[in-house]
């Protein structure tokens, strides 16, 4: 992977100037490279990783993993069906996978009811959906490489030879 991407993936707030120093390149060159990545869609967006369990205000959002069996369509295979499904804003991720079912969705809702409602009223009735299995997420331990715990205290002694 390009080193600029590697740095930004670790910390999206790194400035072009800082990256330029780290990689010994000209800031202008780094700025251009980032702009190119953004234009090509390699970099899609910059966002914060939030541990919702630690937020002060109560947050009852629920997440479910939904396995979906679908009938593929002529010529376009799974893509068209997938598009109809992932276009719902409730669907935060959608994957085509091998195995006993076809699509795996991650669906988010403000509570259990909204997710159930989505499955019952929007997803299941779709013409090409043969069946669904919904798993509600109980606890998140690690997501996208980030372990969701309180920031650990530094265990090193503060000064040593």
């Amino acid at each position, binding site marked *: 992977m390009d080193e600029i991407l590697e740095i930004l993936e*670790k*910390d999206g707030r790194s400035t072009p100037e800082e990256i330029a*120093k*780290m990689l*010994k390149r000209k800031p202008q060159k780094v700025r251009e490279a980032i702009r190119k990545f953004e234009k090509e869609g390699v970099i899609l967006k910059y966002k914060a990783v939030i541990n919702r369990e630690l937020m002060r205000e109560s947050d009852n959002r629920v997440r479910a993993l939904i396995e979906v069996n679908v009938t593929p369509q002529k010529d376009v295979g799974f893509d068209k069906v997938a598009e109809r499904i992932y276009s719902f804003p409730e669907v935060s991720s959608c994957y085509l996978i091998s195995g006993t079912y076809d699509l795996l969705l991650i669906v988010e809702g403000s509570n259990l009811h909204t997710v159930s409602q989505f499955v019952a009223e929007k997803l299941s009735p779709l013409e090409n959906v043969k069946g669904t299995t919904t798993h509600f997420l109980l606890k998140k331990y690690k997501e996208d490489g980030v372990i969701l715990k309180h920031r650990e205290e530094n265990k*090193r002694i*503060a*000064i*040593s*030879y």
Partner: protein
Amino acid sequence: MKRFVAKKVEELQPSGIRVFFDLVLGMKEVISLGVGEPDFVTPWQIREAGIYSLEQGFTSYTSNKGLYKLRLSINRHLKAQYGLDYSPDEEILITVGVSEGVDLCLRACLEPEDKVLIPVPSYVSYGPVTELAGGIPVYIDTSSNGFKLTCRMIEEAVDKKTKAIVLNYPVNPTGVSYTKKELAALSNVILKHKLLCICDEVYADLTYDFEHTVFATLPGMRERTVYLNGFSKSYAMTGWRIGYACAPAEIIAAMTKIHQYTIMCVPITAQMAACEAMHSCRKDVEEMKREYRRRRELVVARLNDMGLACRKPEGAFYAFPSIKKTKLTSMQFAERLLKEQKVAVVPGTAFGACGEGFLRISYASSMDNLKEALNRIEVFLKSL
């Protein structure tokens, strides 16, 4: 009342900056760039191997030299990476970190009053351990040449009583390292004076601009070199206390004698974990190195930008900028920086008097911490 402590221990130079260290340890919310160990936790596979070995009931002694399996993987690693062949039976000893290796080697080889050349600034233990082993440390000030040892410096320091030289590279605290050509030149002088080379190459895996050359691979050096390395820096395993010494059989046999009476063997858990490190974590080493290199570039560039002249270190994870233009001593600078901006660094004088006017800044700290600490150093400089 007559005290019990032996004269030679009482006379050992106490570390002049103990007070400063205590000051740092007593303060809260300090960003520390004063740490001499990686900021990474030991990779999980290695920790897991340690835990598993305990579950399996590996809680006994091992042979004095260490687990054969570990010595064999060290043999294979050195062969593959450097073309060096040390017999796992007779020429490799597992030690409690490189520190024990240095101590064993000096005790095994020094006759009373033998002199040992120590280029400074250097890691703190070489001199005192030489004294404890009955030898006389002869410090070579390298500051006149950007902290790089030269043949001429050795020639000027050597005499008939000189038995050995300690070569540590990449160097803690300056980050200096040597190319093959530079080392070859040094090896000629060392050969001429028939010196024993005690090579602490614990930072070898963190060499950024060229390939690290193991001193023992140079012509004529293997027979007079004790090669010391460990797992602390490459695999972020400082607290496990494990390293190894490779040398000709007679030296390893002598070192093993002392080791068996004093240490017996390195804890088996650390040895089992180190086996795993050798076996499956080379890629982690590469990844850490890439990250350190980026930090090095950032730190050195920022320091120079703010007016603290800093040569680019070739290895380890230390920058060693000059603060001479501030007219403060290293200790004054470090103390005021700590009190006024809550950033801890180590005064250069901790590593020998010739470190005056310099600071050791460790970039074994997260990028976020480094950026914040550098900002604070800049604020501090402007306030002077």
